[in-house]
């Protein structure tokens, strides 16, 4: 049985590569990127290698396919260390979506471990925070629209939508300049390195910093204080543990360029 599972893992990533092709991903060139976060160790910007990012967040239907292929990620089988009890709690059953989880809606109530395993199962990985932030800096026409107050206002207006309403379908928004949809205004998204965002919550004692918790310098602060949308994302991700799940947190996958 275990050998069989291991064999399956050998085969599935290849199937994933063949199965979802270019239509599912947009290619981004990368380069030097000035984050809204102030990295003391990278004042001239972070370097991002070329990568591909899923055009839409992963949907309920896609995640159902995943838990069908890998039953250890079904909510009644998953290890507690990988997902809290609310994991996929909005699905009708461990293997049926039901009325509260439509196939085209982005999957939510997923932990980092489950998101990570999904991406691995399709031969991909979660995007890094920098990759995500870089992709999300674009609007429909500009690769970096962040200096535009109107763009910021739009993002914040999206975020003020109450989270107790039903989620729209994934893929309804116009693609941004990179060909990626729904980075703002649909769900929050896991990043591979969500736990690298060592800010405020981890560093509460500003004046009398709890230095023993950190190895060396390099704590983060906001470089672009007007970019509240990024601040909200960072505050949210930095407060999460890998097993946590929430009603408006989903994910999409990325691939490194070959």
């Amino acid at each position: 049985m275990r050998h069989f599972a291991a064999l399956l893992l050998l085969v599935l990533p290849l199937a994933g590569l063949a199965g979802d092709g270019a239509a599912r991903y947009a290619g981004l060139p990368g380069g030097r990127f000035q984050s809204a976060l102030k990295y003391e160790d990278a004042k001239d910007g972070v370097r991002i290698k070329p990568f591909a990012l899923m055009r839409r967040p992963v949907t309920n239907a896609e995640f159902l396919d995943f838990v069908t292929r890998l039953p250890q990620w079904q909510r009644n089988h998953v290890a507690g260390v990988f997902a809290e009890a609310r994991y996929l709690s909005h699905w009708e059953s461990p293997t049926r979506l039901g009325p509260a989880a439509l196939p085209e809606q982005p999957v939510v109530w997923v932990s980092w471990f489950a998101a990570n395993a999904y991406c691995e199962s399709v031969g991909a990985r979660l995007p890094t925070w920098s990759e995500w932030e870089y992709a999300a800096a674009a609007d429909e026409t500009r690769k970096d629209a962040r200096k535009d107050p109107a763009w910021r206002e739009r993002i914040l207006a999206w975020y003020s939508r109450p989270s107790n309403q039903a989620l729209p379908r994934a893929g309804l928004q116009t693609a941004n300049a990179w060909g990626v949809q729904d980075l703002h205004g649909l769900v929050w998204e896991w990043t591979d390195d969500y736990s690298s965002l060592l800010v405020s919550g981890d560093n509460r004692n500003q004046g009398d910093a709890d230095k023993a918790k950190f190895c060396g310098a390099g704590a983060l602060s906001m470089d672009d204080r007007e970019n509240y949308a990024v601040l909200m994302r960072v505050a949210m991700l930095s407060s999460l543990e890998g097993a946590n799940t929430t009603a408006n947190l989903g994910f999409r996958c990325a691939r490194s360029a070959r």
Partner: protein
Amino acid sequence: MIGALATLLGSASLAASGRDAAPLPRDSVYQLPLLLTTHSGAKQDWRGRRGQPQIVAMFYTSCQYICPLIVDSGKAIDKRLTAPQRQHIGVLLISMDPERDDPAALKAVVDKRKLDMTRWTLAAPPAGDVRAVAGVLGIRYRQLADGEFNHTSALVLLDRDGRILARTEQMGSVPDPEFLAAVRAAATP
């Protein structure tokens, strides 16, 4: 990817050996397949540590400031245990820097800090698994542009089945009394 596969294959052979037939508790950190490369160059599935309580921490060898304190913290706890208690607890330090922490780098710390190799293991996970093991242990970290790491530090006490019994972020030569009490309790047969 390849790392994950290797760990899964490792787990298959471990399961085949028939050791510890009872299923792991769902809240055990050993639910995560993790194939470590130890300071002696051995490949070791960390689930093989099941059966004995463990003190686990994450560190990296080139760290100048806090990581030596992590070793100090483990040694300080050791010092306050009785000899029989010590024999009932293992210490596992997992590197967050597998690119640089090869067996030679790990062994250098073992030698320099005169660590008891019968009970202490310094080991590196596959690069693709660092974030996951940090996740189950509740450690946050970021690699800086110069290769150093910004990270939280914790000692985590696991029971014989890999469930977290206690954790402390108090580092140094004076152990957190509550954590020490938990270690003593776990190490007393």
